[in-house]
């Protein structure tokens, strides 16, 4: 394998995906630099989450190539991509509802450790894992709920657990699928500062409809519509672009 050195965290080349006759990704090409903060916008059904699913490996594209840190991962299973430093959160909250918050975050940590194969030693013996999980919960402000099951906490808190699970993995590339969806104003600003405090070397791609909050976090913006990249570039350039206003912001 070629050494995993690249200026780019993620390169997408001419990606295509169709569900039957419906083309959800049409010759999409994108390049995200290491540590870049990218916002993806577009109306409902523009193919944003589908694009995420192809990057994370949940879906296979029909054609095209995806490179993570220089490595061609187009045919990689999702778990292999995670081991290259990719983490994601879900638009529809996907947590282990019967387990405690601490256990949820611990699973995030465990996913990248060789000890996930250990069968002869109770998980509770790994004190360092528990400590690390609680520290991560502390950074998202949920330490006081660490021992509660996910089913008992509020929606906004679940969103933060989603984030904590991804952050615990210390990813080099993070995909956030509508991290602010359904949050109150206070929660919104909490999560916003959380995202802002993600280490600079981590590249972040975020899908978000709340432009007021999301634009502050973004350096670059990509506008998708009908599965195509319409505009792509520096934030202010994209926002000022006429096509953006036409498609998304309304004229």
């Amino acid at each position: 394998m070629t050494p995993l050195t690249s200026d780019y965290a993620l390169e997408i080349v001419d990606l295509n995906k169709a569900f039957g006759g419906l083309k959800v990704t049409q010759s999409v090409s994108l390049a995200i630099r290491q540590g870049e903060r990218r916002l993806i916008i577009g109306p409902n059904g523009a193919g944003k989450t589908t694009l995420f699913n192809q990057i994370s490996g949940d879906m296979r594209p029909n054609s095209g190539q995806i490179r993570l840190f220089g490595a061609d991962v187009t045919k990689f299973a999702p778990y292999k991509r995670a081991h290259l430093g990719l983490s994601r959160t879900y638009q529809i909250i996907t947590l282990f509802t019967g387990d405690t918050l601490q256990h949820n975050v611990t699973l995030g940590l465990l996913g990248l450790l060789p000890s996930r194969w250990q069968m002869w030693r109770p998980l509770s013996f790994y004190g360092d894992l528990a400590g690390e999980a609680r520290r991560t919960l502390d950074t998202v402000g949920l330490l006081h709920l660490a021992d509660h099951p996910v089913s008992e906490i509020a929606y906004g808190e679940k969103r933060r657990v989603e984030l904590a699970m991804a952050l615990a993995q210390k990813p080099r590339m993070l995909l956030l699928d509508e991290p602010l969806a359904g949050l109150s104003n206070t929660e919104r600003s909490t999560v916003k500062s959380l995202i802002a405090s993600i280490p600079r070397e981590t590249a972040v791609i975020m899908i978000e409809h709340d432009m007021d909050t999301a634009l502050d976090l973004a350096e670059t913006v990509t506008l998708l519509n009908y599965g195509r990249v319409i505009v792509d570039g520096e934030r202010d350039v994209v926002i000022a672009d006429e096509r953006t206003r036409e498609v998304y912001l309304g004229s």
Partner: protein
Amino acid sequence: MKWIAAALLAGLLLLLPLFAGDFYINLASQILIAAIFALSLNLLVGFGGMTSLGHASYLGVAAYISALLTSRYGFGHGAAAIISIAGTIATAAFFGIIALRATGLGFLMITLALSQVLWGLAYRMSDVTNGDNGIAGLTRPMPFDISLDGAAAFYWFALIVASIAFLMMAVFVSSSFGSSLKGVRDQPRRMAALGFNPWMIRWITFIYAGFWGGVSGLLYVYYNKYIHPTSLSTTSSAEALLGVIAGGSGTLGGPVVGATLVLLLKNYASAYIERWNMLLGLVFLFIVLVMPTGIVPGLSKLMARLRRGSR
């Protein structure tokens, strides 16, 4: 409280042959064997979310290999046991590759079909397996030159094996791997995104469950000194599954309670009613209606409610 109850139960199990007659000692041995089998099936059904209707395959493969090697090819029990377990593991590994192409109902149907193939072989390949006559005249092993022919001696032997099996499976489900398994059961997509390989986790569990199924198969053939194709049949797979679900799948105590219940019904009811399966069905129906999650979770919920009520 919990520790006292556990100590009492351990003492009772250990000393049972001192106060019980041979009939009850033998019944207890059978329960221990069925409990190991149910616990191993529960790794798949309860903790892995893989409902198998072919788990008797592994009990049967181990039992048949051991029976053939010791009776026909003059192997000692030690070597025969090792080869039977190795054979069971290989079978489970191979069946796992086929069955895990599917999940849910598809998985269930494949495990059922595969076990039917083995059952058919045991029945029809009569020059090897003796077909419907089964293989009789088998012996029990003599570990450390101790004869296991007495009811009490065999019971203690089965108790040691069952205790080790219970402990190992208890550690397994509470381990990192066990947590991965439960995670894959609940949210496979998420687990994959977190870096876990769902297929590999399921496959290893499938093999591990097959291994303990094989251990129970060895005990089974030692106990009965006889093996017949019915041991491999869908009925025995289904009986065990019934026990797991009735007792409470995904708990450690559930399969033990469920297996005990099935065995007791089988032993007592079959003395009075010819169609004891019907009674088993009714009891099962009653349990599922009253305690949908099984006896053990149902009772612990009830206890919790009573405790809250008395305060």
